[in-house]
């Protein structure tokens, strides 16, 4: 059995919400009288030094938190978090990647929703490029993916994108439902 202090620290650290004293006592199978002094000690220890995080009393429980005054610096963490897309952005990007050259209207038709904002933000993120204007009345812009898109997804070239056939082949039930050609990959033998 680890030391009580170690265990309390770990429980509070690992829980995904503030841990109440009661819950802690339950987890530890110890009475409050035994648990409370250890928490008091932890609270004191974490308040003394200048640290990146401290033990906070919050919502009737205990939780490790970053100090409020670090907020402005921590905000940077979310700013340049790489590789994150909203569902909408991912859908638009997927359609453009697979259907390029493609117009905004075509993306919107497939998604069934206005996609102007999403396309704009993908352009700003340098993931798309304009491939010219479509030769139809109104001359709408045609979009495709950029070199940066390939880099971000670790692809050498567009042809490296999985085909839908390959994708479906990973799903046995689906593969049966679709009229697929015999899968050469699956046949390799001795």
């Amino acid at each position, binding site marked *: 059995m680890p030391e009580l202090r170690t265990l309390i620290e*770990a429980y509070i*650290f*690992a*829980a*995904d919400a503030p841990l109440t004293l009661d819950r802690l006592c339950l987890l530890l199978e110890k009475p409050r009288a035994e648990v409370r002094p250890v928490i008091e000690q932890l609270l004191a220890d974490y308040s003394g030094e200048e640290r990146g*995080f401290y033990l906070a009393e919050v919502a009737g429980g205990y*939780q*490790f*938190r*970053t100090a409020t005054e*670090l*907020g*402005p610096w*921590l*905000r940077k*963490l*979310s700013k340049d*978090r790489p*590789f*994150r*897309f*909203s*569902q909408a952005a*991912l*859908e638009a*990007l*997927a*359609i453009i*990647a*697979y259907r390029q050259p493609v*117009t905004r*209207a*075509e993306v919107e*038709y*497939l*998604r*069934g929703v206005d996609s102007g904002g999403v396309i704009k933000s993908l352009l700003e993120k340098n993931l798309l490029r304009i491939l010219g204007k*479509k*030769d*139809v*009345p*109104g001359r709408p812009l045609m979009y495709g993916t950029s070199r940066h898109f390939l880099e971000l*997804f*670790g*692809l050498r070239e567009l042809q*490296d*994108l*999985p085909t*839908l056939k390959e*994708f*479906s082949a990973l799903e046995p039930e689906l593969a049966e439902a679709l009229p697929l050609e015999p899968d050469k990959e699956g046949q390799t*033998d*001795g």
Partner: protein
Amino acid sequence: MSIQVQLQNFAGPLDLLLHLIKTNEMDIYDIQMVEITEQYLHVIEQMKQLDLDVAGEFLLMAATLLHIKSRMLLPVSEDLDEEEGEDPRAELVRRLLEYQRYKEVAELLAEFPLLDRDIYASSFVPTELFDEADDEVSVGVFQLTEAFHRILQSAPTEVFHEVIREQLSVAEHVQLVLERLTGKKRISFREIFNAPSKQELIVTFLATLELVKMRMIKVEQANEFGEIWLSLAVDEDELEQVPLQEEGLGYA
């Protein structure tokens, strides 16, 4: 000798073979083919008697074992070239050894402490980070393909893309819609979509969309849920200039 084993306990035919070799305390480099084949077939037979599906891979291995067994019964002649003279079991032994290495590592991996099962990382998210949309996900190529796959499943595109290519042409239907509108003040949405088949309907709809995009026709509705009316937006003599190639429309 009867060995009580159940197929579903094995990750595959190689796994089952390794088990049989081990329980028989056989040397993997000198597998007794007759004995092993007999036991292997016995396990499979048991499964069949229990009416359980025996996966194709297990049957394939049974065939391989029988083949090796029969080859070992052939007299070895000295003038055979090197390849044919190889021990018939060699390929199987290589595969078993190779498989065994990964099976062992897999067993080790099973004992690894896992994040969120045995080990926890801090789960506190500072409020400062909340301003980012909550539904953002970290993605890779797989997620991208999956998204496209999903879209195609929910959108009717797959149907009409095939249809257009093989049977019905959007360009043709652009012409048809125009013809039906020619000489009329307006025509109702319902009338124009009075099509015999779903495919026809979709292509007609696409053609209508194209015409709206090209500003060749107008779509009007007096009130919500009211009748939708289509009418020509151009002079009838301008109709000659409609691009009629599929490529021009982008559906080819």
